[in-house]
């Protein structure tokens, strides 16, 4: 239990976050054993790839990072987490009639993504520049109807569901967003808007007191540059 964390306290993915110094795992001694084991295992043991082949892993890793805007270290090991899920056949409990099973849909869609990248930029997806990758991915999001043999909107939902559920189940991401994390058996005591538990950290980075609307605008602009959709977003 008193083991040290594999990173400095308060680390966030890519060093981004608005809760300076907040470490969700600082509370782990107040969590139940089962939850602590599960979360620490997620943090300390990155599973080896078993589902994706080498080339698939290159494409999938690059895709997941683009969807999640993960361009700098330290990273949440989303590729390994998604791989483990697919290897274990842990689906969300359904597939669309017009889609193959998740595992097959993942493999096929990665091939199509490389095809798109080859056609537009003459290289496989992971070998493209950040901006080029952004454009290819934006193309899939914007596609109406079928994208190759798959319905584009279902592909998009498959990718983003797997990506986000891995990323936002990781304690590094909880640090980034200020989430209180597991809360049993300790529970919460301070339930009023604008108030915090003594161990929660107030939002707002000292060096970045930019209002919400401006921050979102800024993110949208940089996203537009990355995806070549600048004109639509101004």
């Amino acid at each position, binding site marked *: 239990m008193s083991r040290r964390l594999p990173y400095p306290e308060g680390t966030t993915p890519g060093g*981004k976050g*608005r809760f300076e110094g907040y470490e969700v795992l600082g509370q782990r001694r107040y969590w*139940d054993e*089962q*939850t602590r084991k*599960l*979360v620490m295992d*997620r943090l300390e043991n990155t599973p080896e790839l078993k589902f994706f082949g080498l080339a698939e892993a290159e494409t999938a890793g690059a895709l997941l990072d*683009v*969807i*999640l*805007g993960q361009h700098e270290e330290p990273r949440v090991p989303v590729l390994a987490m998604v791989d483990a899920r697919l290897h274990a056949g*842990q*689906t*969300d*409990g*359904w*597939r*669309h*009639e*017009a889609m193959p099973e998740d595992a097959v849909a993942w493999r096929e869609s990665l091939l199509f993504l490389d095809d798109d990248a080859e056609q537009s930029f003459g290289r496989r997806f992971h070998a493209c520049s950040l901006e080029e990758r*952004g454009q290819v*991915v934006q193309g899939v999001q914007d596609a109406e109807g079928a994208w190759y043999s798959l319905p584009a909107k279902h592909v998009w939902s498959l990718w*983003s*569901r797997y990506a*986000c*559920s891995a*990323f*936002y*189940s990781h304690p590094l991401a*909880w640090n*980034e*967003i*200020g*989430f*209180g*994390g*597991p*809360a*049993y*058996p*300790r*529970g*919460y*005591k*301070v*339930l*009023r*808007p*604008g108030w*915090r538990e003594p161990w929660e950290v*107030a*939002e707002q980075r000292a060096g970045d007191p930019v209002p*919400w609307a401006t921050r*979102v605008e800024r*993110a*949208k602009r*940089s*996203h537009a540059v*990355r995806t070549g959709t600048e004109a639509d977003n101004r």
Partner: protein
Amino acid sequence: MSRFSDKAVRERNESAWLVPTGQQRTNWELRRQMRRYDHDDEVDLVIVGCGAGGATLAQRMARAGFSVVALDAGPWWDPDADWVSDEAGSNKLYWTEPRVISGDDPVAMGSNNSGRGVGGSMVHFAGYVPRLHPSDFETMTRDGVGADWPIGYQDLKPYYEQIEEELPAAGEHWPWGDPHGYPHNAHPLGPNGEIFRRGATKLGLRAKVGPVAIPNGRFGHRNHCIYRGFCLQGCKVNAKASPLITHIPDALAHGAEIRPGCMVYEVVVSAGRAKGVRYFHEGAGYFQRARMVAVAGYSIETPRLLLLSASSAFRDGLCNDYGQVGRYVMVQGAPQTAGRFSEEIRMYKAPPPEVTCEEFYETDLSKDYKRGFAIQNVSPLPVTYSEHVTAQGHWGEVMREYMRDYVHWAVLGSLCELLPQQRNGVTLADDKDAHGLAVANFSHSECANDKLLQKAAQSVMEDILRAAGAEEVITVKRYAHLVGGCRMAASPEQGVVDADLRTFAVPNLFVTDGSVLPTQGSANPALTIMALAARCADYLRSTSRSGLLAP
């Protein structure tokens, strides 16, 4: 503070006193001493599924002295060892066996609406337990849409009262539908509920705290809620109700046998009467004989099981002579709107169910749609909340920026009464599951009224949040709950079961789960499902005594 006599509840259902005090959540002694039946024993009743409907029926019938075996495909949970305070780690609570979804407006399954294991979907339900309104039982007569039930509100009312005491439900006095009070006082509000109430007050809308199936004050050996916000991941505290702690313990104490890990694949019928069920357990096949069979696998699996039980006497599926099995499956339109506040909200604290507004529940003649919706607050945890953000089309840096702002958002959800349609329902797909059984294909498409309702609900939620001070609102379109698929009706041409939940086709076969609802109102369904099962138990007890069930 309790306003009713615990003694009366205890005499009817002792479950809350049978869960242990102290450090454990499970009464292992009770499980060890469980009565066990042989496969060759012809038990009085075998029940398929130990969820809201199945477990309630098991408890009532066991207490009345019937021999009962209740099977569930999933595990028999121990909250201490099996459940975690973690979204991704709770995947095992959901029915994630393969299913196909289709139609113009397909409905996501799994964590969204389907549980698996003793306690059923209520293990991870949010905990809202409102009643239906009297109008819900006759929407065809009143509004010319939906269907009339073969029973009325008054038939169910005594059972609503019983179950509200057994869960027990906590909430303010309820002014809507048939006005009534709740056995426990309302819980203190969390931050998200506070925002809801603030906005509603500004708009002059009535909003009430509750009703939630979480005791507020002493109730047997159940622990008090610690406001940890993980109700949808299974309550490790034994505060939030689920049949695992509200009905199974009493069933065990009265001789019922619970068999987890048993996937039923056929209801065996011969010479017009049910003889028992066939099931797989750890790869092997078994047959349990029974005098009566009740199916309670919920709106997807119950129709699937009846369709899988086709035989020479029932070529198109058991009880399906009139093509009613699997039809009229409904989900509630459940758009959720999030609002951004300059102060920190931290909606992950407190149980997600808190406040409800039923002002828009019934048909309003000034509107261009029939029936209505309810508004409740919901408080998604990060993984679920990320779906709100990605639903706006955001990804990459923009998505991250929105998520980084998580503590500033409050979320309201609505439940819109989508209408029952013959075309919405369950058929068997070509895909097979691990047992080689055909999986369900659930097709769902909205009608015009459905779309109008959801739009109206969204604008009310936006108004409430803006009135509370939100500077930006975003909405995600989604669905919640399942009901229908084997609806009750006045005649076999219109439904699968009669007013007492007995199938029209097979006199000793019953359906006692959410699939029997002919309409859904804008109320969360679990309380109604339990009340219907309790009513069915009363019917079975009275008719069995008078010998009606003899062949």
